[in-house]
């Protein structure tokens, strides 16, 4: 199982000091957080993609390319890459390029964006949202899986004998997750292709996450990729920890109460009881995270949102120390012990290359 962090990349005022970081500070903080993730032994760093203030990460492969050069083992990913408004040709090329730069330590997560206005900024219409996700992804797959593509569709100019460059590293495209919160269509899409399904999970009651993951697992089996238990599932989650539970609650409360996404609604206590947000000791985070598998089954990737609600960089780095030293090692062991045989490991480039070679070999003997 892989453990990592994902960031939205929001510039948020620290409610305890009233200070708002500059864009440069926030971008540098995101890079520092990514490097720290590897240092503390996490497996994955994923960045969001946004094109509107107060968010800064508009160019994920630029950022991930820098991180690739400064890390050895960290898998670089996205949360999410906009399959609706980005040209699939550009996604194919950007991420194949990143694969080569990062020696294969790349995967990505498809998403449709969090705001309607992003569609017209890129010449698209939000009413086509699902159709764009469907057509663009179908093209993206072909651009990666076939060397020469002739294609015609509804939303972009046709392609004739086109080769996207560079070709995927070792002839194996980056693994794709499909991120969705509430659209069963996306769970269906992930299942159809046998791709991974990531439920952001962070603002949603467990019953809802369970519904969506169940649907994906059933449809994954329906399309013949394996049993429902073999489907590739990722979950989000968000935590704030201190050694002592009451210190965590006391320190995080002003951030929670004022956060653009949480604040001015339910109390911290109500929200933590209804959603995966966990504010407490490392042990409480361990217990809560282990309980996710009761809802969705054994899964492959757990990403935590750590740099939220305007927390200063120093605090986030302390949080990552706790996560890497006290939480993840226990989770790795516990999840591994609980996992039945036959549940697949999280996908890596090496494993996928090996599997592809195996398939080719079988083809030759047959």
């Amino acid at each position: 199982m892989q453990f990592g962090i994902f960031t939205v990349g929001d510039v948020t005022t620290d409610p305890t000091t009233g200070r708002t970081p500059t864009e440069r500070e926030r971008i540098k903080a995101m890079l520092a957080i990514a490097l720290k993730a590897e240092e503390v032994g996490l497996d994955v760093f994923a960045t969001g993609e946004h094109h509107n203030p107060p968010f800064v990460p508009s160019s994920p492969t630029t950022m991930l390319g820098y991180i690739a050069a400064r890390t050895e083992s960290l898998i670089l990913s996205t949360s999410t890459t906009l399959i609706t408004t980005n040209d699939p040709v550009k996604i194919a090329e950007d991420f194949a390029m990143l694969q080569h730069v990062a020696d294969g330590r790349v995967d990505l997560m498809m998403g449709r964006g969090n705001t309607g206005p992003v569609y017209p900024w890129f010449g698209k219409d939000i009413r086509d949202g699902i159709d764009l996700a469907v057509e663009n992804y179908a093209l993206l797959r072909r651009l990666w899986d076939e060397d020469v593509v002739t294609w015609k569709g509804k939303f972009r100019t046709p392609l004739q004998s086109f080769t996207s460059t560079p070709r995927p590293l070792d002839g194996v495209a980056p693994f794709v997750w499909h991120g969705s919160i509430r659209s069963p269509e996306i769970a269906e899409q992930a299942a159809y292709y046998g791709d991974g399904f990531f439920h952001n999970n962070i603002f949603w009651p467990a019953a809802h996450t369970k519904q969506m993951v169940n649907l994906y697992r059933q449809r994954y089996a329906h399309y013949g990729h394996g049993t429902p238990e073999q489907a590739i599932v990722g979950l989000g989650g968000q935590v704030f920890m201190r050694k002592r539970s009451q210190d965590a609650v006391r320190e995080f409360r002003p951030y929670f109460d004022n956060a653009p996404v949480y604040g001015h609604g339910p109390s911290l206590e109500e929200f933590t009881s209804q959603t995966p947000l966990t504010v407490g000791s490392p042990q409480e985070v361990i217990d809560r995270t282990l309980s996710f598998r009761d809802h969705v089954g054994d899964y492959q990737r757990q990403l935590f949102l750590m740099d939220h609600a305007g927390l200063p960089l120093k605090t986030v780095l302390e949080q990552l120390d706790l996560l890497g030293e006290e939480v993840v090692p226990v989770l790795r062991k516990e999840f591994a012990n609980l996992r039945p045989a036959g549940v697949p490991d999280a996908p890596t480039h090496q494993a996928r290359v090996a599997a592809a070679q195996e398939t080719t070999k079988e083809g030759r003997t047959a």
Partner: protein
Amino acid sequence: MKLIVVSAGLSSPSATRLLADRLAAATLGHVDAELEVIELRDLATDIAQHFVTGFPSARLAAALDGVAAADGLITVTPVFAASYSGLFKSFFDVIDKDALTGKPVLLGATGGTARHSLVTEHAMRPLFTHLRALVLPTAVYAASEDWGEEGLAQRIARAGAELAHFLTPAARGTTPDVDTAAAIAPRSLTGAITSVDPQDGFDVVPFAQRLAALRV
């Protein structure tokens, strides 16, 4: 058969609740149904939090599911600033967009003066038409002075009989048309998320069908 009353009265005792109870009694005089009353006052905080968090508390989800599963509704609001109250509207703002489709709904409102009598027509009726409910022709407005007047009782009786008529399966006629049948089938996740059992909660279009639809 299930009849649900949604009452947005705020005081206790409440004239709005009183009207709601009279309408329910008038309906149940003609038809045998299980009655449940939802007092929105008890859900006020849950409704506000739903706006902020995007999902309902378990208690609110149960109420929303109850309404979606009911065979008929009686909705009653006090008049605030010449319209339904904000709390009343907020409840129907967070309900699944298909929850009321084809469902018979009886409208009632209460106010301090008769000058707002048409609030059922210019405010409530368009709201429920938008939600594709079967809004009954007779709506009942009760001003303070109506409680002592002739006429209110007759209007309540007529409205209750209308609702009872549309609650009985024979009166509801034959099978609903395709759109209505789809809309009143087990719920999709496109609207408010509720506690409906996941196993039959989805209606998935097979992916190949989506792909095929795009091929030009």
